[in-house]
């Protein structure tokens, strides 16, 4: 099942894999995600579907090695199989079919932005993109984004490429100089998305974000992924993952994303330890 057919190392910590998953590929649409598990004792983690090929029966996943599961995944190579993979989960993004849309991707978030930008571009939408990362060597999918955008702006936290600063700064510059967008789609780390939303709020431009909270089953069963949108509790796995960023309760979302920070560290330490890399 779920055999890795191709792998690209995008940055030292970001990898792209093309996985054989015909049933998922047949139904997948931009905005949806999968949940996977690498080992019998492994955790279930959600990853956005970055691309899919219905004919070849493959999906593309892009991930950054942050926790134990993504590190394990990072070690897998072509020919290896992922133990469990289920999807497509979540609601497909409701993408505009015309007009001008600003697509913003931060860090590994460029990966989930790409299929949306591509789909809109194919429908005739004027796509303008901003991609960002901590530094130039961590930028991903720039070529792919250029192929589906009329303009691509780059921002790096350290100034090693493009604008010296955050993607949200670039959004602000574009809006300040009077550029018009019908919608903005911002995907990336939670603090980046929050910053983008705060920048666009005064301009009243509809800003969609793709939330990535902690999940277990991904089918609406456990409620781990709940968040407040417009004061109502939503389950990201079945109601999302795309939400109106101006309606999200960000303080709650940020706080809930940190529930298991301590345990995530323990899991990684435990893995290192088991492999003889114990710190004295």
């Amino acid at each position, binding site marked *: 099942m779920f055999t890795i057919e191709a792998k690209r190392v995008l940055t030292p910590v970001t990898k792209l894999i093309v996985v054989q998953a015909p049933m998922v590929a047949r139904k997948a649409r931009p905005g949806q995600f999968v949940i996977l598990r690498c080992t019998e004792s492994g955790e279930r983690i959600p990853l956005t579907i970055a691309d899919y090929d219905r004919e070849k029966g493959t999906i593309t996943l892009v991930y950054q090695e942050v926790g134990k599961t993504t590190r394990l995944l990072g070690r897998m190579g072509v020919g290896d199989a992922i133990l469990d993979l*289920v999807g497509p989960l979540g609601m497909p993004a409701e993408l505009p079919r015309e007009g001008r849309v600003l697509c913003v991707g931060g860090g590994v978030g460029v990966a989930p932005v790409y299929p949306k930008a591509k789909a809109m571009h194919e429908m005739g939408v004027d796509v303008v993109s901003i991609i960002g990362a901590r530094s130039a060597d961590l930028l991903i999918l720039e070529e792919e984004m250029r192929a589906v955008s009329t303009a691509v702006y780059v921002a790096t936290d350290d100034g090693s490429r493009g604008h010296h600063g955050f993607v949200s700064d670039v959004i602000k510059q574009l809006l300040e100089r009077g550029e018009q967008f019908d919608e903005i789609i911002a995907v990336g780390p939670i603090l980046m998305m929050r910053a983008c939303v705060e920048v666009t709020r005064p301009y009243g431009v509809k800003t969609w974000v793709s939330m990535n909270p902690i999940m277990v089953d991904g089918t609406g*069963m456990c409620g781990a992924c709940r968040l407040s949108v417009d004061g109502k509790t939503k389950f990201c796995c079945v109601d999302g993952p795309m939400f109106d960023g101006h309606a999200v309760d960000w303080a709650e979302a940020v706080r*809930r994303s940190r529930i298991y920070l301590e345990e995530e560290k323990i*899991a990684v330490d435990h893995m290192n330890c088991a492999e003889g890399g114990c710190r004295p």
Partner: protein
Amino acid sequence: MTSKGSRVEMPRQAPKERIKNFYEVALGYTPEMAMETARYCIQCKKPGCVKGCPVNVKIPEFIEKIAEGDFAAASRIVKETNSLPAICGRVCPQEEQCEKYCVLGKKGEPVAIGRLERFVADWEAENMKIDTPPEPVHPTGKKVAVVGSGPAGLTCAGDLAKMGYRVTIFEALHAAGGVLVYGIPEFRLPKSVVAREVEYVKSLGVEILTNVIVGRTITVDDLFEEGYEAVFLGTGAGLPKFMGIPGENLNGVYSANEWLTRTNLMKAYLFPEYDTPIKTGRRVAVVGGGNVAMDAVRCALRLGAEEAYIIYRRSEQEMPARAEEVENAHEEGVVFKFLTNPVEVIGNEAGWVTGLKCIKMELGEPDASGRRRPVPVQGSEFVIPVDTVVMALGTSPNPIVSQTTPGLRIHDWGGLIVEEQTGLTTREGVYAGGDAVTGSATVILAMGAGKTAASAIHRYLTEKQGR
């Protein structure tokens, strides 16, 4: 005929020991204990027990074989009507079913039918290397899809396979068993027992595809297009309920589903050997009075909680949980706060739970359920200091299948509308049973519904061929 044997108590792990582990609490009968218990049955001519069993296990017959010491024969009799005896022997509410109608129970104690069923199933697993071979049937060549591998789905699939259908079960999670693996804890139903029963169903020729969500990965319409001639929906009641009180999204508030799934399916109690974590906290409050609440609170103790509370708005009498589970919880040191209802979850500045604000309740007039309605006592609010709150308020059916299947109708509360005698939904060829139809109920009722639907599907496909 008079009774010779006696109702032997099943040995259990001592409470102080068992709250430190997830091993099974009830340890099982020895052959001697089983035979002594079996001899207690007076072999009624018109046994009430069988009528009380949703799958009509031939109870006196299998008990007679145990009394004779022919456990293999007993096992074959049980499996004629029940594909999952090791599970039913452990989690059925026998006091509400077979044992309730035992004639001996009218004056004294009923025969321990559940314990005997468990004994037979466990004996078979240990002693009969090759499973009881199912009676050979001529494959009909027809394909039937079963959605969900919980008790309803497994039973329906097993029965259809025995009737000669090619059955495929589609399971959303990575493991088969549904609520038997994600919900019911190891100490009440070991996962190895579930795996064994799943293997039995597979040995009947049933194919199980995990990691497939019907309604997402594939739709019911797709299944018909792929040549399945009937579909059984045993999708359970997977949607958690919350109270809608302030503070429910604080860090440290879990639905019982999440709490149990992390613990049982993902084995969070073995973290970090297993990767999935859980935040237990020192003091845990579980809100609710059903079996799920008992499971959740007993998990809390085993996960290391020093204080574990059941918060229930009615009194002990109205608790829907099985008496046996309530007793187990009492023995293990769970503190029951009856006539108490949460009004707010209190948190600290960082957003973590620090307490549960509750109000005292008193019982008023009977409500629709026939139980006396709890009403709040004005001004009686108080705070129980806790680190973790688990909401075990019941569940409702998951809408993924009903939302993606044209022609399926549901009740306002989410349950699938079916014809009671057959399980037929509002769409031809689509049947349903278990919690997806009834809302959260019991394993055995789901199995009964799976059985009913299997017969109905068989009639439907036979008639369809004749048309």
